[in-house]
């Protein structure tokens, strides 16, 4: 039976059909749904780990124990998990182990545009790259076979367009591979220098075998349409090239992107007068070709930035451009905004109003950087808000301590924020950290985390008590505020900035989009009272706008959070 499936759902189906039993991941767009879909299969144990490093170590432990295992993450998550990855390459596996890493060319929902293929090259593990949902499933199953055959973790590289596109997939039954025997083998699994030296020799030999395999693997496909033009490509770039060039070019579609074959590529190049390399982000395939002395054209046409598309390929290779009609007039941009009723809004309003410097982090609340709140100075990576605040305060001293805060979400705090807080307590800055506890991992679409009291399957689980955790770390001043109460929130921020010791403010209210959150009826503007002062617009609420000089509230969006009635000096907003 053919089914329309998201690339990530097809990937999860591949995990199921391959007989995977242990899955551990940390959510990150565009990788999140692989693990969510995997959790829907009763045969698979699936969990959200606190971060990607933990997830990968869980998967490796399960593999060593003899089971087929998986961990999934976005590109920047692989940086967090790089430490176990580079040594897992040395230990190899027992049960097959597959890692999904989802790159985000075009940065639809990411802080950088890194190319994860570099990690595969540097850690010397096999990396596959599917180009549609059917391949997501098939490549995943093959990845487990190759993992066990070559004794290596295998990375399957996804990208936004493959992960979040639906296409037809043929479903198969689940294989039930027997759990492998666990035999104590310190020379393979205890990576101390004496043993690791031996394993490095193994890794280099393995790479040679993998190159040999890549020369003839069915994952690397030649589509020979004759003619003068050859295109070497992989992943979604293949789809762009194929749509633009059709049968007017021949293709070498690489399903294995590390290690790259040598003879296969040389033979392909020898057949065509002109060979192009079409790959998003970095010039991995192109550099490989050039190292082999082959005359190929790639980045000089396509560049290193953003996504490629069929239109770009058609323009660069055929000089073809589509005709179109533009709208006659200026079209204002529509950037993403915090939702109506978002608990973060009240907090950011207080920070903005008091012109407080904000060391930011990764999550929905990064939107606090946008106008009109504009209350963010830095955003770097998961957890960096707290550690960077400490550094900022060490560099600038008391002036900074009295006027700068860190903001971090509950999930991000558990991911890698708490180690920064340990540093603040241990190495003593009078830093003020605000944990935005909305009881969920918001931006990636509502995943549970160690503070929510529920696990991935929605069952009750141990919940980290943030207040007690911060106290145990050594922070004596820990207080909780309701960000819907602007007066209380503002007072807490001012007080904690003023004191000469580190403090944590927990701004606590569940995400307004959570199903269990009860909303109040939409608020109304009492038009006679409204002076048109536009104070309420400073909240940046998408439900409030001004028509004919008076505020109006969109009843389809407003959830009655009431912070606009708190900022209105004329009592013009009421229930």
């Amino acid at each position, binding site marked *: 039976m053919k089914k329309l499936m998201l690339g990530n759902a097809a990937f999860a189906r591949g995990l199921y059909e391959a007989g995977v039993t242990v899955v551990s991941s940390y959510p990150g767009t*565009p990788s999140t749904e692989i693990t969510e879909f995997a959790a829907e299969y009763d045969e698979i144990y699936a969990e959200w780990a606190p971060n990607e490093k933990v997830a990968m170590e869980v998967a490796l432990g399960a593999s060593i124990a003899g089971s087929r295992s998986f961990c999934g993450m976005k590109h920047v998550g692989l940086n967090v998990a790089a430490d176990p990855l580079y040594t897992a390459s040395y230990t190899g596996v027992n049960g097959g182990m597959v890692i999904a890493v989802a790159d985000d060319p075009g940065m*639809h929902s990411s802080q950088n545009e890194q190319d994860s293929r570099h990690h595969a090259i540097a850690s010397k593990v096999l990396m596959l790259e599917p180009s549609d949902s059917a391949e997501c499933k098939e490549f995943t199953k093959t990845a487990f076979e190759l993992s066990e055959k070559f004794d290596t973790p295998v990375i399957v590289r996804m990208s936004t367009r493959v992960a979040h596109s*639906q296409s037809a997939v043929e479903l198969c039954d689940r294989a039930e591979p027997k759990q492998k025997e666990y035999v104590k083998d310190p020379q393979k699994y205890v990576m101390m220098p004496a043993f690791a030296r031996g394993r490095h020799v193994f890794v280099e030999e393995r790479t040679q075998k993998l190159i040999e395999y890549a020369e003839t693997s069915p994952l690397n496909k030649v589509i020979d349409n004759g003619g003068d033009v050859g295109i070497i490509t992989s992943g979604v770039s293949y789809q762009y090239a194929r749509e633009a060039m059709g049968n007017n070019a021949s293709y070498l579609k690489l399903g294995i992107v590390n290690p790259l074959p040598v003879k296969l590529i040389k033979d392909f190049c020898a057949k065509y007068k002109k060979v192009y390399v079409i790959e998003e982000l970095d010039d991995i395939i192109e550099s490989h070709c050039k190292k082999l002395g082959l005359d190929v054209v790639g980045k000089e046409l396509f560049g290193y930035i953003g996504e490629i598309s069929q239109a770009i390929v058609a323009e660069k290779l055929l000089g073809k451009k589509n005709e179109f009609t533009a709208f006659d*007039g200026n*079209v*204002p941009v529509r950037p993403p905004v915090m939702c109506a009723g978002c608990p973060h809004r009240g907090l950011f309003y207080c920070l903005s109003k008091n012109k407080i410097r904000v060391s930011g982090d990764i999550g929905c609340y990064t939107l606090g950087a946008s106008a*009109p709140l504009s209350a963010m100075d830095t955003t770097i990576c998961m957890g960096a808000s707290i550690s960077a605040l400490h550094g900022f305060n060490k560099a600038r001293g008391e002036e900074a301590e009295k006027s700068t805060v860190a903001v971090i979400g509950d999930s991000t705090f558990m991911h890698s924020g708490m180690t920064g807080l340990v540093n603040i307590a241990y190495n003593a800055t009078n830093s003020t950290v605000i944990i935005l506890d909305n009881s969920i991992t918001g931006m990636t679409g509502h995943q549970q985390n160690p503070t929510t009291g529920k696990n991935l399957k929605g069952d009750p689980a141990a919940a980290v008590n943030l207040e007690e955790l911060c106290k145990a770390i050594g922070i004596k001043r820990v207080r909780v505020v309701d960000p819907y109460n602007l007066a209380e929130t503002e007072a807490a921020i001012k007080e904690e900035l003023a004191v000469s010791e580190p403090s944590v403010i927990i701004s606590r209210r569940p995400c307004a989009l959570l199903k269990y959150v009860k909303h109040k009826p939409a608020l109304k503007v009492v038009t006679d009272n409204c002076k048109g002062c*536009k104070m309420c617009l400073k909240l940046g609420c998408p439900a409030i706008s001004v028509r004919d000089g008076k505020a109006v509230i*969109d009843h389809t969006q407003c959830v009655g959070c009431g912070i606009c009635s708190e900022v209105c000096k004329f009592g013009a907003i009421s229930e």
Partner: protein
Amino acid sequence: METRSIMIVGVGGQGSLLASRLLGNVLLAQGYDVKVSEVHGMSQRGGSVVTYVKYGDEVFSPVIEKGEADVIISFEQLEAARWLPYLKKGGKLITSTRKLDPMPVITGNAEYPENIIEKIKAAGIQVTAADALSLAEEAGNPKASNVVLMGVVAASTDFDDKLWQDAIEQCVPPKFLELNKKAFELGRKAAV
């Protein structure tokens, strides 16, 4: 058959994912190769969002570029204007008359353009406009605007009604099935 391209555009939170899945399922049941490309993550938070639906004998690229869409389905007027360049010559626009101010308009840094639909029509483009919000409220929930609009779309295709009904049953939770079927019907009638 050559690949055909449909874009669904709107504001994050308006339900374009459900609409694209409905359409994708109908097209798959019709026997086409189908690709549906979605946007998740940050842009979903009230930003401009776009989903691509492509179908034909064999679909390669999941995305639609400028001048390639046969149909654009828009949940909001400004978004119709924004994505208009993606329509191919002779392509068709189906839009809700809904207006939602983007943040630069709310903060007074930009103006919401006037007479969007009239201007697009004046450019020689075939436009079907429907008040999807009022119809959704009539069906019982303003959130069902997306399914109302799919009813409008259904009226301009000759796919069997059963395919649409099956797709709605597949994509909508049972609790909201009646509501959505009503919304779909209202949309279809409005288009005639």
